[in-house]
């Protein structure tokens, strides 16, 4: 009797663990398939600007992509947004993005207790996708996107195959901040001469020539 009960318990736990694992795997698969990983990166495509994870203190963004093979790419820019309590999309804050990133890392490494991040990140529309075709072994796609608001953005480059198929995807995240938030740079002329020294030097130069 006891043996039968413990066997049933054992089977039940196994089933539960299996179900949990399956749920976790499914959650991870569905989450990343929707938002991050569409496939391997194209070796012939390099996103020169912006570099992944950089901060830009401007309201405009330069997208520059280097292609080293004849192919067609589709370039898109998304703002990272979430739905608020009323279901309206609002921009993800930098802190929220950091939290999502760390949660994703924990999920991937298996240390997370949850199957998906607390915030569901959505891709906010910024511009119409742009297609660019390179005919040679070296070409550059360049575009300036203007009037952007502060936030987290994703540059997504799809390498297009026959029809509408996507062969590769390359993504870069960039943080846009106010120009005024730019860290104050050290004075370029901190170590330059004082006025008196300059004055004396100029005086000597004018007397004795250069």
């Amino acid at each position, binding site marked *: 009797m006891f043996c039968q009960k413990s066997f049933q318990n054992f089977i039940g736990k196994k089933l539960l663990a299996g179900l949990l694992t399956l749920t976790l795997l499914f959650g991870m698969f569905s989450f990343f398939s929707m938002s991050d990983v569409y496939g391997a990166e194209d070796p012939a495509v*390099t996103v*020169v*600007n912006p570099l992944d994870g950089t901060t*830009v*203190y*401007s309201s*405009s963004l*330069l997208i*520059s992509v*280097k292609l080293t093979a004849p192919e067609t790419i589709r370039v898109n820019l998304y703002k990272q947004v979430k739905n608020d309590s009323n279901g309206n999309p609002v921009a993800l804050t930098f802190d929220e993005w950091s939290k999502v990133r760390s949660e994703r890392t924990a999920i991937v490494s298996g240390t997370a207790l949850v199957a998906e991040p607390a915030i569901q990140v959505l891709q906010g529309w910024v511009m119409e996708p742009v297609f*660019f*075709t390179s005919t*040679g072994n*070296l*070409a*550059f796609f*360049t575009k*300036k996107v203007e009037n952007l608001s502060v936030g987290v953005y994703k540059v997504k480059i799809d390498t297009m195959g026959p029809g509408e198929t996507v062969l590769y995807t390359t993504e870069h995240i960039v943080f846009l901040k106010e*120009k005024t938030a*730019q860290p104050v*740079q050290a004075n*370029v*002329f901190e170590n*330059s*001469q004082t*006025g008196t020294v*300059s*004055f004396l*030097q*100029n005086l000597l*130069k*004018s007397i004795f020539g*250069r």
Partner: protein
Amino acid sequence: MKEPGAKGITKEFIKSVTMVVLFLSTILLLYVFWENINPGQMNIRNLTEQESLHPVMTPAEVVAPDEIQLSYGDGSYGVITGNTRAYWWTPQDSGQGPTFTYGVGEFLQAQDIFVEEITRDQYQQVLALESLKSIFDDPLPLNLLCQAYGWDCPSATESIQQVSEIAYSFGSMESLFVKDGDRNLYYRIIGNGEKIEQSPFLSLYQRIALGSKVAYPLTLLLGEEEANPVLVPLPSEFPYVITTYTNERAAGGEDFEKSLAKTFFGATFDFTRIIQDAQGTTTYMYGYGQRVLVAGKEGTFRYKEEGAPTQEATLFYSLETALGFLSRHGGTQDPLGKVYDLHLSKIIRQSGPSAPTTFVFDLWEDSAIRYEGGALAITVSGNRVTAFTRDFHVPEKSQTQQFSAGDYTAVNVLATNHQQMGQVLMENGFFQDRKEETFLMVTKALESIRLEEIRFSKTEEGVGKIETCWCFFFEKDGKRLEMYYSIRDALPMGYTLR
């Protein structure tokens, strides 16, 4: 005592007159000696023809930067490569707002001005902040600019010889910055500093921002490894202009040619031979060839005058001499009556005292046109003009349309044509051998990339075209190579070695 008769009185009178004549001759000879005038060059025409038929331009009117750059301080830039004059200098009553020369003039009125040499890195860092920069493809002496614009340049600025760039940065408002490209030196002129709202550069900055095309450093577009801070214009749309032109001789006919020749040889062509050859060239020759004007078949007028330089002259005075000469010999008016602005594009100075100086000019309208060779070249020796070449164009058909660069952006033109560019640079001695990848060699040698209207050389018949195209500028050891590419298909359109 014998009273002097009528004969004696006449004799005394003749003596007195002779004395007066001798006295006046002595004064005249002293004047000739003092002014170092060559008597062989004097003739009646010199005394009669020196009236100006056209307004005399001042040096301030003909000097203007080839490019103005503006840094937004966030890695993006604005560039103006067309007619920069409205931002550089205007007569005081223009009402357009402060200009660059006005801002510099105000800055230099400070009491204590110091000059210090700075490093290239410091120069680039401070100008990467919000700043304005005027660029001269052919460097100009600072004292010429000081004289032309009445800047109160203190003795401290004497160490600065040539100006290839002059700049102001809001990151260091007490300073002006100068680059001497010939000697690769960078200077900081330190003044009193001022409040931002009082700076004339603030409203100029805003005005330039409105009129400029967006540009990014090549490093940002290509990646860090090809480190070259040259700016690449990235306009979404721009005006594309294509114009066919003919020459002044064809447009103005014999009347125009004769009227120009009369300004050199007088209305009656005294002592002047007029020779016409079978090819259509007409030569006007005064005396035994002391002064010669050749009206070429293709519509170019070349005038030469013999004679040694009479005295040494400053560059500013030579430029004034050249402009004065121009006003007496056709000015900038074409046969159809259109009057152009002049832009001093190059100064060719030979070494040695009293050595001739040649001023090369382009013609500017609302837009700026760059020439494969200038429209006007005037050579001044001392205080005399010894050579004059006039090669104006007369527009025929012109089309302007808004154009989108599409796939043929400047970087793609570079990517498509780098092998051809490398080949041309090799042929012209810019590289000895291909030590590294051609693309890297070409991008490292780049000095400037611009979208400009180019007047291409005319055919033997004297016709040609002006077209908007991508221009790539390379410079090495004083040599300047300009390469032109179509904005429609990125194909090479030619190059000029200056």
